Each structure stands twice: as C-alpha cells, then as structure tokens.
C-alpha cells in the first residue's frame, strides 16, 4: 500500500461521503456549546455543536466544508464520541493528537483501541500539511465542549 493509499483508507473515503453528524441540530439541553474553526491554509471551516447531559456528550453535530480528510474526521469523531463521558472524550482527543504526531505509525498501546475507527487516520501523520485537516473537527469539538462546560454559547 502506497503512502497515498494508506492515508486515503477506504473507511476515510466512506466517511467523507456518508458524513455522520453532518447538519447542525437544534438542541434543548442544559449545556450546549458551539465552536467555529477555520483552516487558514485553505479556508476550510467547520462549526461543531455539542450538547452535554449528565457528564456525557449527548449530541454532536457539525456543518462545514473541507477536504475528504477533514470531512471524514468530523464524521468519525462524531460517531466515536457521541454518548461518551467527558473523561473518555478527553482521553480519545489526546490519543488522536498523539497519533497525528506519530509519523504514520500506530501508537501501539491501549490508545489505539480507544481511537477505534479513528486509527484509519494513521497515514495522515506522514503528511505534516494534512494534520491540520484531520485535527480541525477535533479542535472544534474540544472547544465546543469547553464552552458548553462553562455554560457559554456561540463561537
């Protein structure tokens, strides 16, 4: 498998088409947070909205435009972390950042299990310019959670 094929694994191409969580959902929850992030390299952007309930991420939805890596990443993180408690979400986000900076290799420990389908992005680590694409939705999600936690809304 070439580096290019390793980056564009089938699961990524599939998620780039199906886009789990795509389309912002109106939420009637006590803690809602939203974050808008822009990839200044290409002008791609994403808005992620989360709703928290009882220490868990009850809802993740997003809207944005971008390359297949950023779109698939938003889809996979939505699928992976909807329903997760905040601690697991935080650990998963840390693991994903670590994976992005692991030069195209899996982490080789329990964090790979935590990442599940998100390990498909392992190949992105070989292309430093693309790490931003993969991280965009994760950064937005983390910021949205922080905003929901302090009870502020907006971006």
């Amino acid at each position, binding site marked *: 498998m070439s*580096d*290019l094929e390793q980056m*564009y694994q089938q699961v990524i191409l599939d998620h780039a088409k199906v886009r789990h969580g795509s389309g912002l959902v109106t939420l009637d929850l006590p803690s809602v947070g939203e974050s808008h992030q822009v990839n200044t390299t*290409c*002008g*791609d952007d994403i808005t992620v909205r989360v709703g928290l309930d009882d220490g868990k991420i009850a809802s993740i939805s997003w809207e944005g435009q971008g390359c297949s890596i950023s779109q698939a990443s938003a889809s996979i993180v939505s699928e992976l972390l909807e329903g997760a408690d905040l601690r697991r979400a935080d650990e998963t986000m840390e693991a994903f950042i670590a994976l992005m900076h692991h030069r195209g290799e899996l982490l080789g420990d329990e964090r790979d299990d935590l990442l599940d389908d998100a390990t498909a992005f392992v190949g992105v680590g070989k292309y430093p310019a693309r790490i931003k694409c993969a991280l965009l939705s994760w950064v937005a999600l983390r910021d949205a959670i922080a905003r929901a936690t302090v009870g502020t809304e907006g971006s």
Partner: protein
Amino acid sequence: MRAISDIRADFPILTRTVRNGKPLVYLDSAATSQRPQQVLDAVADFETHHNGAVQRGAHLLAEEATEAFEAARASVARLVNASEDREIVWTGNATAAINLVANGMANASAGVGGEESARFRVGPGDSIVVTQTEHHANFVPWQQLAARTGATLRWIEVDDLGHMRLDQLATVIDPTTKIVAFTHASNVTGLVTDVAPLVARAREVGALTFLDACQSVPHIPVDFQALDVDFAAFSGHKMLGPTGIGALWGRAALLDVLPPSLFGGGAIETVTLEETTWTAAPTRFEAGSQPVAQAVGMGAAAEYLMAMGMDQVAAHERRIAHILREGVSALPGVRLLGPVGDSEANDVLGLASVVVDGVHSHDVGQVLDDQGLAVRIGHHCNQPLHRRLGAQSSTRASAHVYTTEDEARLFVEILATVRPFFGMS
C-alpha cells in the same frame, strides 16, 4: 530563447527527487519561483566578499555594499522601465509595498506631511476602489485604509470568467475616488488586465492608481511608464529572486511627498526634539537596516530575466498556458477558472486553476504530489474571486522559464486520474 534544457541547468533544485523518488515537477511558480545559480551566486558573493553597512561608514566594504545595493536597484528599475532608479523603493515583500502606500495615505489623512501631502488624504465622503479579482494583499490594506479614515470601499466586479467589468468603470470610479488599486494579472485566472481604460478613468476623476504587478513583472514585459500608473508593487521571490525582498515603484514626484509610515534611522533629513523631516525617495521609505543581500539577489534575478528577454519569457509561458488550459478543459469533471484563453482578448499567464468536481483541492494536490508534482491548493489568498466564480478553492499549476511542455502535459495526465482515485467516473 536558450534551449529549455540549458535554462533548466541553471536551476539546481530541479534535479532533486521528491515523494516516492519521483523527479520534481515544479508547477507552483506563481506562489514562489525557484532561483537560478546566478542569483544564488550573487547572494553568496555579496555575503562572502562585500558585506558592509550600506549608505553609512567610510570604509571600503561599506562602499562596495552600497554599490551592490544601488546597482541592484538600477537593474530592477531597468526591468520595469522606471524613469529614475530612485523610483524603486526596497520593501520586505510586495505586501509591505502595498501597505507602505496605504499607510502613507492614512498618515496623510491624519495630517502628516501637511499641505504637501494633501493629495493623499482620504476621509468620509471619499471612495477607494479595488476590484473583485484582487489578491488579499491588494485588497485588505485598502479595506483597512477605508475603515480607518471613514472613506468608502468600492469594487469593480468580474464576470463569470473573471474579466473585470470595465462597463462599471464610469459608475464605480467617480469624483469621490482618491485611489484605484487593481491587479495587472490575476493569480487565479491568469488573466492580464487591460490597464489603459482603468488608468484613463482614474485620471479623468483625478484619482491615483496602484498596480499589483506581482504576477506580471516575473512573466511578461512590463513598462510602468507606458502603463501610466502612479504606483506598483512586485516581489523578488516570484521573479527568480530571493524571499524577504520586494519593491515599490512610484513616480518620483509622488514618492517625495507621500508620508512615510515606518519611522526610524536612514529615512530622516533632520531630527530635533520637536519634529522630524524626511529625506526624498527612496531612503524616505527605507528606515532601518535593509535586506541588502536579498536586494542584490533580486537585482541579479532582474538581470537574468532581461538577458533572456521578457518577450521570450512571455512567449514560452503562453505555450505552456495553452497546453495546460486546453488540456484541463478537455477533462470530464474538471472546470477551469477563467477562459481557456487566446492571445487576443483573453491574454493569460502560464497557469491554470481548476476545480475538480466532487474532490477538494487539498485532495487533488495530494494525488499530484504523490507523482512528484508541486502545485498550489486552496484559495490562493483570493477568497472574493473564488466565491464569485463559484469555487470554495482550486488547484493551480503555474509555470516559469524552466517549465517544460512535457511537465504541463503531465499535470493534465495526472489530473485525469484524480476522480477515479476517489471512486468517481
């Protein structure tokens, strides 16, 4: 022109391999060009043998450094047919050159320079005109000047192919207009602007003109006197020179009364505790230590291009443009931004920006990179034009003197594999 193989031998970087051991196919010259050995040598020779403080000091090195610095200015002045060498002001890059004039106008508007600088004042009731096809560097400084001074920013729109709507000149540019800033050649569509009608209309209402010549100076013959504009900006690194150096050209009579915006040593005539008076151009705008080696490199690049002949450079790149633009236009699911182009009504530079249906430019660029092709992806610092042309971003292949016809064909060939790679027919 010299044989292309001979020209390529001047550019050492072209012999290296890139991703997967593929030979480098460099098609990103509109973003930054590569440097010939002659430029690299000029910079190294200066640093190795002649470095000294320019325009100060009484020793031999200071003299040699000053001579090299000013000789480079003369070379660049000759490339663009300035009427005097001092009409070339060194700036850190082209963006700095544009900001120099915009900030100078803001200072004039605040009263700096007094009556002498009154013609640069803008304020409420005045308008500043740009176009919809501007690079952010020739858009944001004017937008901000308007915001700071209370003037209104107006723009000339473009049509579906990216041509400036010259039919709007009479209404958009009016007696309230103080300056009209526009590009000489688009970094997205490659279209070369018909400068004359814009200048004529600006003159008619007494407005200044500012030309963004970043994409034209490196690729086609440019004569600022013949174009009859008032100011122009261009950069070293797009014309086979180093980064960290650019130039502002302006009419001497205007430069001498435009207030500076970077204050410091070297630019002053007399300093007292109460007030400061400035020198004439160019030193008026060259406060602080200058990028001397870079200026020397830009001068060497100007000499390199002039030795080749700008008409020859333009003819070569027009052939490349033809291959690129005809080629991509024939591909299914690929849209060229701008006209296919011919040498008459649609004069275009040697570049092609394309949108691949259903595939983001970042992904397109990655497939090309996998085959050793270096291209630009994204909005190329030009969001308003992309939006107007109905594209979020695009993939751009751009040529220079060293680009071969085979490289242009290879771009078209690899571009054809992009949609199939992502599972589209």
